[in-house]
């Protein structure tokens, strides 16, 4: 008999942010929207009563996960043949990001400067900046980027699968990384930001708009203390502080002599 555990055992704020297309019926009801909700409820009703429907939902969910995994496969063959820079560049461009070789312009996957053959010219040229914003990079995919030992700027804005575990791997780029942007990543919390202290050469860090950070103002202060030579852009330290109406009147009152 399947016991129904208490629903009040909410284990996390729903920050599961799967792509909208495939996950209509699978994502938990973060924002119930009319028809989607009704379809989801019917499927849930059936899944509660029939093993086949439950297995089907399981299968669809696993398929979604494996899609992300497939996108993040390591380019081992290319790496062996052409070196880590070409492998890293191919990976980032395939995901939809942009790459900047030393002394060159930004190369985007959709722009007209990109062609596979042209990339081969840069076999020995190190990559100095990677823009992987909005890409589906995850913990495994980061392998390709961590092999770029001369990387100076890394932009990971709004990446849905970059989380605290990925941040713990960034220490491998400590010797060269100078600019890092994590703005808008839904899964990064202050616990992951704590392991950025390895990046001693970091000069600019963007941690604005991180929904999973519980206390943005305090986190900003603590991160600034942790990385004294770095300019930390993000929340204002007064964000989240509320000044009550009494405080203002106290400021204007004159202090009584003791």
């Amino acid at each position, binding site marked *: 008999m399947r*016991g129904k555990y208490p629903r009040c055992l909410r284990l996390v704020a729903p920050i599961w942010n799967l792509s909208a297309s495939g996950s209509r019926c699978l994502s938990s009801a973060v924002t119930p929207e009319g028809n989607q909700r009704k379809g989801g409820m019917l499927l849930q009703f059936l899944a509660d009563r029939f093993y086949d429907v439950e297995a089907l939902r399981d299968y669809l969910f696993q398929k979604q996960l494996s899609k992300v995994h497939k996108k993040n496969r390591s380019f081992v063959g290319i790496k062996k043949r052409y070196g880590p820079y070409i492998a890293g560049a191919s990976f980032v461009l395939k995901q939809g990001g942009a790459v900047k070789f030393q002394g060159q312009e930004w190369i985007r996957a959709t722009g007209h400067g990109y062609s596979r053959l042209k990339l081969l010219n840069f076999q020995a040229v190190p990559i100095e900046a990677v823009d992987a914003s909005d890409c589906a990079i995850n913990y495994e995919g980061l392998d390709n980027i961590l092999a770029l030992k001369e990387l100076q700027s890394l932009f990971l804005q709004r990446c849905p699968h970059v989380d605290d575990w990925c941040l713990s791997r960034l220490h491998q780029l400590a010797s060269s990384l100078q600019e890092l942007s994590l703005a808008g990543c839904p899964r990064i919390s202050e616990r992951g930001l704590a392991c950025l202290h390895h990046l001693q050469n970091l000069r600019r860090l963007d941690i604005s708009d991180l929904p999973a950070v519980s206390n943005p103002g305090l986190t900003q202060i603590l991160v600034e203390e942790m990385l004294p030579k770095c300019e930390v852009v993000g929340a204002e330290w007064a964000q989240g502080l509320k000044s009550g109406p009494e405080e203002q009147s106290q400021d204007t009152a004159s202090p009584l002599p003791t």
Partner: protein
Amino acid sequence: MFRGAVWLLAGRGSLGRGLSTRSGGWTPDWTEKVSEIKKKIQSALPGGAWHPLYDTSHLPPEHSDVVIVGGGVLGLSVAYWLKRLEKPRGAIKVLVVDRDHTYSQASTGLSVGGIRQQFSLPENIQLSLFSVDFLRNINEYLAVVNDPPLDVQFNPSGYLFLASEKGAAIMENNVKVQRQEGAKVCLMSPEQLRNKFPWINTDGVALASYGLEGEGWFDPWCLLQGLRRKVQSLGVLFSQGEVTRFITSSSHMQTTSGKGVTMKRIHEVHVKMDHSLEYQPVECAIVINAAGAWSGQVAELAGIGKGPPDTLEGTKLPVEPRKRYVYLWHCPEGPGLETPFVADTSGAYFRREGLGHNYLGGCSPTEEEEPDPGNLEVDHDFFQDKVWPPLAHRVPAFQCLKVRSAWAGYYDYNTFDQNGVVGPHPLVSNMYFATGFSGHGLQQAPAVGRAVAEMVLEGQFRTIDLSSFLFSRFYLGEKVEERNII
């Protein structure tokens, strides 16, 4: 159809009550009687707990293939992997028995929640490596359809072990083994320590090892609830009750050298209900002892250890509860966000908790100072005498702090060699152990669960070879010592 009839009855019951007030003179608790009848009929329907005389829905089932004694993180991990590795799906009926569904004394919930790969035994390192992988992909392993994803709140801040002159050579050796197994650990000299963590006083420290990846701390309660939820969705049954007796049968056999030996098999487990003398005999094929700090008592119920000393029959399971204190304090000038889990040369440890300059810490007492494990009362003098002085020496900022709260929990302490016991008992052939991890059970639970499930289903370890953790080492006297114990 039956249900429809019952609901109609209930409806008519309330209607009948309406009628009765009009006509007057009816028994006032008619609706209660109706609900009792409803309950009886429902228990008689297929799928209900059927017993002709009384309702047995609160009792565990009468038959179960595997009974897991102990519903903490190790027991649930074994249940999860049994359900995951079984072929075909749904083949094995698993029952988890725990005497306290609130987990008030269970080691899992009271744990500090650290996970590290810095051990000296390769097996321990492999177990932790897999467990960290499990935690990282917890939403793939423990996904339940239409439930929110789990957030174990992992802090990837690493462990920092400090060694004095005496321990420096051992630490270097350990780090070599850890690197061989694939852990990312680096060694630091006192100078590098001071550069990286300026709040440390490196007086007396000769070497430090710092875990760079895959080490830190997390929320053990979340892992427990996640496992519980997933395991329930896979069809594992839970029962709240205490195991009071095993019904066994013995057969006398002879070894090849002619020595007589008594092999036992457990046939039934008696599960006693709370606050009552009622018990249910559960007929089972396999029993898994994951009772944590009380595993020694459960093993004695099966007759393990009852025999002349220095024989296999007389070898007890050397797991007993040991009380450990954890203190939470606030220090406004304390170390910053980058603080790892620091384990000092003296054995005292601490870690950060949250954003607000709160720290958790404690110390393992020496053998002579072991507190009485009869209750979970906290001794605050222990903090003043044994925990604060070494920590204040190591981190001068801790000279001014204020203790906010404290609690105590049990280690399932293996008095033989402080390492886990895994696998079947040589004589009681259907009791498997998953216990005795002496303080690092939580961080190895996913991997140990998988190893025990492999042992049960296939008869041998497939992924991680834990043959050095079998029970027979207690009889043979082969200690498998772990030198990095906190």
